[in-house]
């Protein structure tokens, strides 16, 4: 799998926001590849830059507040970071499409569901209004919405959150994109609906060989859907690994901390409740580019070296990278 050319290659991406207190380095030198058909999960807590990364790829950042200050976003070798707005309009919804975290507010309340799907088809595939309307009904059926014909004539407020997210997915896959960016698509949904949406996405991927960038803070979801995981902290990539490898051997103390914060079934046996482990402290301000390990203040393993230099990404086995001077030991032997 590693020898196929990447579909999307993000190289040293730098995205900055202008604020009153100076520029914020929201994404600072992030790189990763996505191959055709592959699902890459981008993981991290709120404010770590994962959504900004996805909006950078789509070039949907607020034009006046944010800019891509450096790096490349290569889609089949074409650099989207410097592409014209006109070119981006052909890419968005056609080569790369996106679904969002907020199914309740991501659909236009005054246009019918059918119209909102058909619009993309008219735009990118040059279908007539009628053809697009018919295909929209098929798309609703393909995302498992019952009575698609009737639903197509309805407005978003007549649908539940899960249904709306299905409609968003129908819009996203309308033009058979090569890459689907899913920005926390299940965060706002009930657990049962979450599972349905994940199943639907997995099913669609299987049918279409579409690649997916899945953004989430939910490690449970990652295990279910991803092939490869990129962990971000404070705007930087701190660890990257194939999903099984990451779960078996997290090397960065932050990743290990995230796993430690997961509840384990049966851990509160005997009436005694164990507190979940937490990572102390909070995410640092991103005002200036890092001059040391940004996780050091919260890290149980940090040393003077961590507070003096930025740890480089170093190989930790096949396809496994971690930016840490003192990575977690391999826990396979059970010597914790």
């Amino acid at each position: 799998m590693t020898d196929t050319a990447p579909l999307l290659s993000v190289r040293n991406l730098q995205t900055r926001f202008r604020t009153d207190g100076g520029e914020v380095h929201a994404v600072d030198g992030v790189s990763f590849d996505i191959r055709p058909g592959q699902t890459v999960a981008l993981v991290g807590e709120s404010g770590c830059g994962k959504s900004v990364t996805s909006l950078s790829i789509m070039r949907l950042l607020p034009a006046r507040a944010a800019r891509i200050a450096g790096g490349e976003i290569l889609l089949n070798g074409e650099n989207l970071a410097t592409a014209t707005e006109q070119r981006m309009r052909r890419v968005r919804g056609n080569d790369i499409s996106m679904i969002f975290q907020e199914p309740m507010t991501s659909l236009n309340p005054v246009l019918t569901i059918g119209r909102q799907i058909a619009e993309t088809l008219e735009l990118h595939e040059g279908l007539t209004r009628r053809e697009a309307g018919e295909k929209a009904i098929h798309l609703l059926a393909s995302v498992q919405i019952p009575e698609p014909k009737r639903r197509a004539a309805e407005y978003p407020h007549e649908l539940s959150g899960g249904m709306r997210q299905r409609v968003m997915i129908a819009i996203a896959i309308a033009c058979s994109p090569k890459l689907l960016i899913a920005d926390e698509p299940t965060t706002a949904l009930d657990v049962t609906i979450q599972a349905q949406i994940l199943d639907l996405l997995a099913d669609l991927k299987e049918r279409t060989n579409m690649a997916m960038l899945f953004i989430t803070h939910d490690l449970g979801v990652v295990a279910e859907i991803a092939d490869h995981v990129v962990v971000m902290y404070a705007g930087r990539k701190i660890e990257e690994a194939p999903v099984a490898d990451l779960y078996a051997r997290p090397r960065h103390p932050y990743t290990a901390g995230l796993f430690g914060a997961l509840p384990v079934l049966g851990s509160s046996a005997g009436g005694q409740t164990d507190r979940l482990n937490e990572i102390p402290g909070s995410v640092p301000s991103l005002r200036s580019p890092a001059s040391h390990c940004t996780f050091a203040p919260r890290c149980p393993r940090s040393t003077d070296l961590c507070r003096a230099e930025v740890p480089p990404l170093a190989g930790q086995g096949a396809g496994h990278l971690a930016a840490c001077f003192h990575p977690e030991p391999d826990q396979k032997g059970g010597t914790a």
Partner: protein
Amino acid sequence: MLSYILRRLAATIPTLLIVSLFIFSLLYIGGGDPAAMLAGGEASAVEVEKIRETLGLNDPYLSRYMDWLTAALQGDLGQSLYSQKPVTELILQRVEPTAMLTVTTMIVVLVLSIPLGILAAWQAGRATDRAVMIFAVVGFSVPIFVVAYVGIYFFSVQWRLLPVQGYTSPFEDFPDFLGHMVLPSLALGLTLSALVARITRASMLEVLSQHYIRTARAKGLGDRPMLLRHALKNAAVPIVTVIGLAVATLIGGVVVTETVFAIPGVGRLTVDAILRRDFPVIQGVLLVFSFVYVLVNLAVDLSYSLFDPRIRYR
């Protein structure tokens, strides 16, 4: 929907009753003696008193109001104290110029304000936006009569491009009608355009920050369909509300504008009636204005459901 409209129309009756009582009382308290005006400067006190008696001005306040109201309910708004003609007829004669001025003014307002508001919201914070906002502040601050007289001075007197005053019916001579309407509509429309442009900008800005606009852009839509198809319809409710209010403001503006431009409309009729203390005419005109106002409000409320499918009337 129909039953809603009927209920709303029925609800206008108490409104109009209160309005009429209010106007009646205001004129009663406000004073000024129509009998003296009619009799002229040289009339003796006895003569004036006689006229007052024949006009029924000496009857008690409430009985005068009840008489007027009973007649009004039968469609009779009384007679002008001055010309002795029925008030209904006087108003009907003057409706056309005022209706035409309202229409041309609203065209000016819509053509000017909505594109400007959209443009400003789209270019928020940039030079275009600032220019539109400066226009809005200036436009809103300059009184109608100033715009009117400055317009007359340049376009009519200096450059002789447009007629100074007067009115021609569009059914008689359309180009001449347009010529006569340009300055009054602009004078009246400028203030309102400024207001509507501001609200359009604010409402569009609010909508442009919504998630579904990001979705529209993520589909690859360009600015034009994003603004017009996705944003404007969502921004419409506040804009239509303000346009409704603008029509109401227009009623006041019409009085000034018709006076400045010597347009024989309802506004002029009102001013003349007030100057002559012609109570029945004032009363009739104000009642008609209030009714129009209530109708405009109803139309605005009903139009909401055109823009937003979540709004339904039952």
